[in-house]
């Protein structure tokens, strides 16, 4: 028997056993067998599926339901004993399923999550004990346990979080996760794995109701009226945030925190201005973190009327050659575009930006040069005073560029007295697409700005594809025959490389 067939067969056997047990409760040994097999650790995924199948069916049929009538002693009938036994088994299995969250295989982890969520859903629909209220019932303790597993402090669980996101489209789950979350938030400093998991989860959580109202833990959901209390959510969020902000962050978690802050949390905070200090500190970290902080500060300036005078110098200092190799390059350009969109900025300042970008273009990858060319073009369009960078009032020659690259303060960089020679140089770029992009300085500027957002995400591949598509019919061949290896004209490789 080949190994390949084995798991298929075992899952089939397990399935058969489960079905037998469900049709005939007397065969309770089957269930015990399955659980035992599960404990051995082999074929975990198949066992999980089978157990999920068994318990969801049991829940559906209400076989574990125990009627509790107050003030009435429970009669220890056989059926009651059986049910009690089943429930004990259920609790036991539940805790075992939760342990598989720490299984080494990601696949099994995912399976465990989906199984446990399924069981949870069924329990919500068919509660173990009679629930008086009509409101939707979600077994909170179980949800809490699941979340605890996801927010592990030992393993990074981005896949689990991603999987868990699928359940967040259900309003009830979303709401109760928010409700449970404050109690799961560490008060003192947790380790970064926990923080990372936590922030990942937080990034996925919505703070408002889903557009389409769906319930996981209610059958049909027609008579259930679920009260989605958004103000409560905000309250939970603020509570959580106050804890999180106090944690000690590494660079990675700091970045993640800022992303979460910018994308999810900021609009819902009670007192966003309290974040100013945090953002200012982040601004000095450098790299992507400061970029994100910058965006935060921009939002604060824009929405909450924060006054931060030195922001342009900060932005200016972010334009370094390294930026082209980070993932945050599009964001930086987007932000810079936003910041410099005001027409009331001093020309000196904007000229400094233009000039610095032009310098960077000399070392930038080709796709970024195109962006920079457009960007500078837009700057000049917005600030007609910058035309002197293209069209010097007097003319003449100089031996040195008046612009000082090393100057940190854009206002002192003397850029306004310079010219955009760099762009002129780039007209000699080896790639024709770049060279043509740089020719904009030769012609009168257009009346409409270039649309940068289209090209921000471009990579070298785009340029390559475009060149392939150009497909000109012109077929040109070299006309001097290579003498063996070397060209008669312009041969370089042969000069420096030894082929024997």
């Amino acid at each position, binding site marked *: 028997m080949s190994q390949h067939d084995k798991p298929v067969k075992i899952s089939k056997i397990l399935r058969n056993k489960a079905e037998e047990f469900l049709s005939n409760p007397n065969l309770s040994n089957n269930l015990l067998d399955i659980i035992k097999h599960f404990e051995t650790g082999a074929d975990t995924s198949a066992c999980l599926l089978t157990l999920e199948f068994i318990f969801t069916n049991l829940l559906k049929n209400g076989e574990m339901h125990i009627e509790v009538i107050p003030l009435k002693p429970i009669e220890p009938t056989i059926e009651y004993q059986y049910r009690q036994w089943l429930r004990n088994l259920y609790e036991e299995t539940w805790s075992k399923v939760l342990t598989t969250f720490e299984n080494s295989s990601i696949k099994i982890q995912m399976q465990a999550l989906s199984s446990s969520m399924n069981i949870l859903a069924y329990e919500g629909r068919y509660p173990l004990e009679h629930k008086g209220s009509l409101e939707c019932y979600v077994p909170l303790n179980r949800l809490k346990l699941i979340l605890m597993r996801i927010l592990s402090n030992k393993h990074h669980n981005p896949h689990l979080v991603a999987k868990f996101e699928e359940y967040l489209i259900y309003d009830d789950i979303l709401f109760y996760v928010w409700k449970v979350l404050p109690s799961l938030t560490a008060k003192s400093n947790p380790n970064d794995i926990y923080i990372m998991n936590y922030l990942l989860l937080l990034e996925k959580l919505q703070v408002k109701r889903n557009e389409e109202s769906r319930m996981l833990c209610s059958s049909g959901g027609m008579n259930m009226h679920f009260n989605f209390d958004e103000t409560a959510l905000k309250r939970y969020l603020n509570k959580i945030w106050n804890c999180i902000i106090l944690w000690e962050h590494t660079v990675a978690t700091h970045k993640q925190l800022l992303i979460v802050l910018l994308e999810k949390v900021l609009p819902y905070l009670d007192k966003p201005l309290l974040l100013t200090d945090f953002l200012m500190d982040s601004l000095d970290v450098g790299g992507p973190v400061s970029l994100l902080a910058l965006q935060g500060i921009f939002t604060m300036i824009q929405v909450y009327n924060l006054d931060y005078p030195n922001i342009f110098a900060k932005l200016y200092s972010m334009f370094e*050659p*390294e930026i*082209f*190799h980070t993932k945050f390059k599009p964001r930086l350009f987007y932000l810079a575009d936003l910041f410099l969109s005001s027409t009331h900025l001093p020309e000196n300042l904007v000229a400094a930006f233009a000039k610095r970008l032009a310098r960077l273009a*000399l*070392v930038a990858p*080709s796709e970024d040069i195109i962006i920079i060319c457009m960007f500078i073009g837009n700057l000049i369009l917005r600030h007609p005073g910058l035309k002197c960078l*293209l*069209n*010097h009032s*007097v*003319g*003449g*020659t*100089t*031996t*040195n*560029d008046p612009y000082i690259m090393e100057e940190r303060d854009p206002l002192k960089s003397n850029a306004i007295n310079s*010219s955009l*020679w*760099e762009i*002129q*140089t*780039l007209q*000699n*770029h*080896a*790639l*024709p697409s770049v*060279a043509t992009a740089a020719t904009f*300085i*030769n012609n009168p500027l257009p009346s409409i700005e270039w649309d940068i957002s289209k090209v921000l995400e471009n990579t*070298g*591949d785009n*340029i*390559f594809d475009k*060149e*392939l598509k*150009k*497909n*000109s019919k*012109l*077929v*040109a*061949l*070299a*006309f*001097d*025959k*290579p003498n*063996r290896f070397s060209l*008669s*004209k312009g*041969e*370089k*490789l042969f*000069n*420096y490389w*030894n*082929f024997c």
Partner: protein
Amino acid sequence: MARPKNKRNQISNQSQKQQAKKKLNPFEVHINKEKLKVLGKKSKSDRGLPGVSREKALRKRKSTLQQEFKLQHKSNTFSDKRIGERNTNMTDEDRFIARYAKLKAKRHKKSIFNLADEEVLTHKGQTLSEIEKFENVMSDDGDSLDGDTSGRLDADFVAEAHFGGGILKKTGIEGAKSHKDLIEQLITESKKRKAEKQKLKEETLELTEKLDSEWKDLLPLVNKSKSKNVVPENEKADDYDKVMRQLKFEARGTPSDRLKTEDEIAREAKEKLETLEKERLERMHGVISKINESRKHVSADGLDVNFVYDSETEVTLSYNQEGISNVELEAEINGKTIVPRESGDSKSDNSENNESSSESGNDENPEECEEESDNEDKLSDLKGEDSISESESELEYVGYEDKIREDLLKRKAIMENAREELPYSYNFPSNYEELHSLLLPQPSEHQFIILERLIKCHHPSLGEKNKENLDLLFAYLLQYINDISQAKDIQDINKCFRVFTNITPHLYDLAQMSPFNAHTLMIGVIEEKQKDYRKNKQTYPGNDIVLFLKLVSCIFPTSDFRHVVVTPAITFMDQMLNKCRVRTRRDIAYGLFLTTLALEYTSLTKRFLPSAINFLVGILHMAIPKTGVKLIKISPPFKISCNKLVLCNNHEESTMELAMSVGYLLEGEINDEFRIRAIHLCLSLLEEFAVNFMDLQSSYEIFIAVLKYLELVPMGNYPKKVKQKWTLLMEEIITMKNNRRMEYLMLAPKKPKALRLYEPNIEKVYDTKRRKIQSREKTERDKLLHKLKRERKGALREIRRDREFLSGIKINQKIQSDMERQAKVNKLLSEASLQQSELNAMDRKKNRKKTITSQIRGNVRFCIVEYLALALSDVLLLFVVDLQATLDRDERQSSQHGLVKVRLDRIEEELAEHVRDGRHQQCPAEHSGGGERIC
């Protein structure tokens, strides 16, 4: 008697009508008074026919608008579709005929699908086929002979009748003849003439027919005699004639151009190269001119000669060494006695080499020998090319020439051996595996020769399928390169590169044979490789890619501004240099190789590729020893703390070979040798780039980073040569900084608008109207706008007139109906009055006036009601009200309504009486009150 009169009347009526049409009624003509009269001016609007045109418009409306109006609110219409029913010009009889004809035509209508019975075309009642037999050809000579006089009056008559001297003559000779007689005489005469002519014609016809029949009888006799005469003549043709004819019809040698002298050939070759170079430069600057795409076809001889050209280079190299000028082509060829093969090719123009040619005779393929005659042309063609390329290469590579020379000579010998060992012809490999197994076991030189012979044997001019075969061969060779480049150890990779060098010239030739195929294949390869690379952008891909990139630079012009193959290739290179991480020895070597290639690609155009400079900067950075605290910045893909190229041991005195080896493209340990070579290569490349970018405006800014790192590289341990390079480079960058002149950017000044000339602006005026001077589009637009305005006005006018017309119709209808109604009312009233009179008469008889009056009053009331209904006039209303008032006062009200009809006059009388009576009696206030009510 009456009939002719009637006829005349009719005719006169018709003619009158026609005249009326032609002649206008002078009273209808409206003449516009002209205030200023200009002589010779024609104006359209000086007179018009308003009445006539109005009439016309009215008629038109009657036929269209009125008809529509009549049919308004009617869903059905009758339309008479009988033929000619609506055509008033047709008489009844015509209609019947037309309908009958149509009916017949319908009955005879044939199926269009029945091609067999086509209608027979006729000419003068004869079918065309009959005519085409030309059975009865009558010459028209008879007609034309006396045609001049045939139907015409003879000269005498004309002279007499027309110009006959007038009255004098007439009175003298034929005074008795009246005009009528003259005419009659004329007619009889012409008839007579015609009859005569007819007769004559018939006679000739008869005679001709007779002659024809007789000739037919004679015909066999005539033919016999002829044929007998001819045959013996034919037999007489002797050998001499045969030979003569043979010579006559033999293909003559076509006149050709005289053979060109060598100078001319060289000049032509030079010109050709110059044009090619010019085109290249144009493409380099982005001007895509339509270049002559039909390249000169390279023939099999060309291939053969190409080889000669190769070996020639070697020889000339040696000559350069010896200091003999290489411009003298003659000398070169003469000196080439070392190489027997070449002399074999060039024997046709060099008699001195005849002795040596005998040795090489057995080398030649039979095919080559046949086509030898053209060889001289190509050979010298390439020589010319040679001399040019040499003069350039001479400057650049003097250093390594002597080194290579010996090597090449050695190789030459090997090749000669190979040439003799290998078979001369090969079957074309049917698939790639076959080629692979054919080439792989052979050493690289043998592969060169095998391919050479393969291509020669399957030259397109030798067979139809050969072109496709060679296209296939190109693809196979690419695949072969791809396969051999997967080398794992150093021997393999060396061999791989050697094989590659040997294959490249053939690939070049194949590309020249079918450029389009080469383009598509190369593009396909590069695209595929790039797609593979995309999967893992962080690591340098396989070695095959550098080979292909090098191949691109060999086959295609790298200097074009945009080239179908080269541009993607350089984009690919750029991407790799930007993205790939540099960790191992292979990464460094690979990157350096790519950078060298980038230099090669851009060396002619002096274009700028930032990624290449960035890479070299990164290499320099690797050579800087980093102390723990101070970080030296470098942008990715390099790592800040990489010390891999730092040279620790002293190699100052070593005189090692500094060229990089392709072996480094394999994984391996980084040793000092590699470090020195890498840095040396890096420095030399930077130097070349620096020279290339000298003219760029921000050249110094490009090299700022280089300078910064250069200063930090400790040069103490490096060999002297490397140190030299280093100092040279430093100096160069510094001079670059000091010498450059940066011109402030200025937009090209706008061309100043030309001032108006002082000469008068003379325009030709053809009409008196002055037109604005404006662009053609604008005038066109203005014209259209004007037209639109006029049309709109016209349309509005038409609509207005239509409305008027319609309202006229409506009011006419209304009047008509009113009149009818009036007539009816009148009729009623008259009947009523008649009745009344009868009644009155009866009353008078009975003398019971009082009762009658009361009756009448009752009747009057009723009449009033009827009046109201008819709503005839306000005056009457007033009247009625007065009456009402009177009646109100009158207590005696009658309820009788039996009598309805009352005569109006009578009522009025009565009413008047009552009113008069009432006014006497009633108080005035009440009366006036009644009047107010009415108001």
